[in-house]
């Protein structure tokens, strides 16, 4: 029986491994690698790369800037309704991105909830780069906030208390103690969120459309090219695999150096003992 169990586990592992690896390998085997990366010089690819970099950078900066204080609050304070807020923050994680796109359209679109107010201000958001930024921020924010809450929760409460007894006000406690000690976990959460934001597709195409050079990000470019120039779609996909793989490897090496574990989801180490 013991041998049978071992065989079943080994077979399941082999199937899972092959299934996950095959599509990734296929992208690199379909055409010669040299030809593959030559496709990155294509106009569509270049435009998409610029749109993606710009919108992701802005969206990510907003998420980190707003998400960090939110995570600090959620990690440090126990208040009624905290569980509700935490669940709400994580909701985009389980929503289909298309639902996020519809939701954003219903809120900020021309005929949406805030449509009239935005119109009066002369602001049009739907199908602009602003829409891309909003869509990306919406889907990546739970990845960052979740990881950041865990990172702040990993900071020993007594260190913050000690800082306060030494005369430090809330800003100083946050900047000098909590932030540096949570930095590892915040960095990991930030990288994962960034990767998720770069890959955002569903919410963007519904809320921002797919206009080359304006709202067409790299994933949208893959979609627009796969029936026109499959090699360009392959090339962009290969780029994603390299960037995503690079982020994961960097996180694991960093985590392994810091905590001796290969999970990037570990909270920051902070105890003094």
């Amino acid at each position, binding site marked *: 029986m013991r041998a049978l169990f071992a065989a079943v586990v080994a077979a399941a592992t082999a199937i899972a491994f092959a299934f996950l690896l095959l599509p990734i390998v296929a992208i690199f085997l379909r055409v010669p690698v040299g030809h593959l990366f030559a496709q990155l010089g294509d106009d569509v690819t270049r435009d998409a790369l610029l749109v993606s970099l710009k919108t992701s950078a802005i969206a990510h900066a907003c998420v980190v800037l707003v998400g960090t204080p939110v995570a600090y609050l959620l990690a440090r304070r126990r208040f009624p309704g905290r569980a509700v807020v935490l669940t709400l923050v994580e909701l985009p994680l389980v929503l289909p991105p298309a639902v996020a796109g519809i939701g954003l359209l219903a809120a900020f679109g021309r005929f949406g909830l805030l449509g009239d107010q935005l119109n009066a201000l002369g602001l049009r958001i739907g199908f602009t780069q602003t829409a891309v930024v909003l869509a990306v921020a919406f889907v990546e924010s739970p990845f960052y906030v979740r990881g950041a809450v865990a990172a702040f929760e990993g900071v*020993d409460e*007594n*260190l913050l*208390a*000690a*800082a*306060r*007894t*030494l*005369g*430090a*006000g809330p800003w100083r406690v946050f900047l*000098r*103690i909590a932030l*540096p*000690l949570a930095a590892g976990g915040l960095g990991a959460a930030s990288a994962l969120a960034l990767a998720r934001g770069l890959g955002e597709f569903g919410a963007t195409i519904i809320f921002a459309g797919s206009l080359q050079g304006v709202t067409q990000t790299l994933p949208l470019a893959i979609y627009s090219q796969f029936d026109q120039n499959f090699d360009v779609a392959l090339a962009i996909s290969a780029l994603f695999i390299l960037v995503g793989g690079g982020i994961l490897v960097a996180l694991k090496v960093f985590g392994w150096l810091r905590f001796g574990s290969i999970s990037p989801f570990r909270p920051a180490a*902070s*105890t*003094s*003992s």
Partner: protein
Amino acid sequence: MASLRLDLTVPTRSFDVELALDVGAETVALVGPSGAGKTTVLRAVAGLAKPTRGRIACDHDVWFGDGVDLRPEQRSVGYVFQEYALFPHLTVAGNMTFGGGSADGLLERLRISHLAKAKPDELSGGERQRVALARALARGPRVLLLDEPMGALDPHTRAGVRGELHDLLRELRLPTLIVTHDFEDAAALADRIGVLSDGTMRQLGTAQELLGTPADEVVASFAGANVLTGIAAAAPDGLTVVRLDAGGTIYSVEAALGAVDVVLYPWDVSLGLVAADDSALNHLPEEIVSLARVGNRARVRLRTLTAEITAASAERLGLEPGRRVVASFKATATRLLPRA
């Protein structure tokens, strides 16, 4: 004259801690079993735990009560946390100057100048304790709070560090609260000792007072005494005879009737292989459970009580676990506390 006055109720998960205490320029130790609420008292004084009612005042400044509730950073406490809570990402000097103030004099006073550039995880337990103490003192606090300052040290380091801390506290003359679960540490460091159990102060007094006239069995057992339970009745010659619940009878010079706790200190118990014909009235046949040498003394745990004798005597008698002995003590060495 520096003083810290407390009168407060602080809720914890399982009970309310209620305490009234005036601390002058002296050291008061709070001892008691873990979970008794000792740390909660320190946290309330520092402003890290919020009392439901009461008053905390340092000299003439109210820190809590009368509509006032100062934040921790507005109070003036030097707090040495359990496990020390040194900032792991800062050097010793960085830790010390975090609250402002100068580090040099204190580093020298505590003989840690050479460690200024080291990170906390490079320090030994004793060094960490000194850094934590120096950091707490760097801002010139008006009250000192020490939570198990010796708790993280091995027994070898402990004795030396205790002596240094004792001298430092005498020199500082600050109102100091020190939390410990070790009665010996408390007796060595504090002017007065308060025994806390389930959030209430059982007794407050000098070590001698707690040892000599413990208020109840919690205090007695904390002071390191044996506490035997039994039923007391009058005996001839004005003595009291106690029939022990664990078997056997003993005599006491104290008067009592009914259910009692018999308090007996380990150093008042002598051991022999046979009952000696001496002035001791009480002889209990016992069996050795374990035996631990502490320097030149041996703590011998018997079935129902503990005896402390010289290591030389233990050797001479060939004492070892499993050996049957007779524990002897005088009727004058026993205290009888009526049991509620």
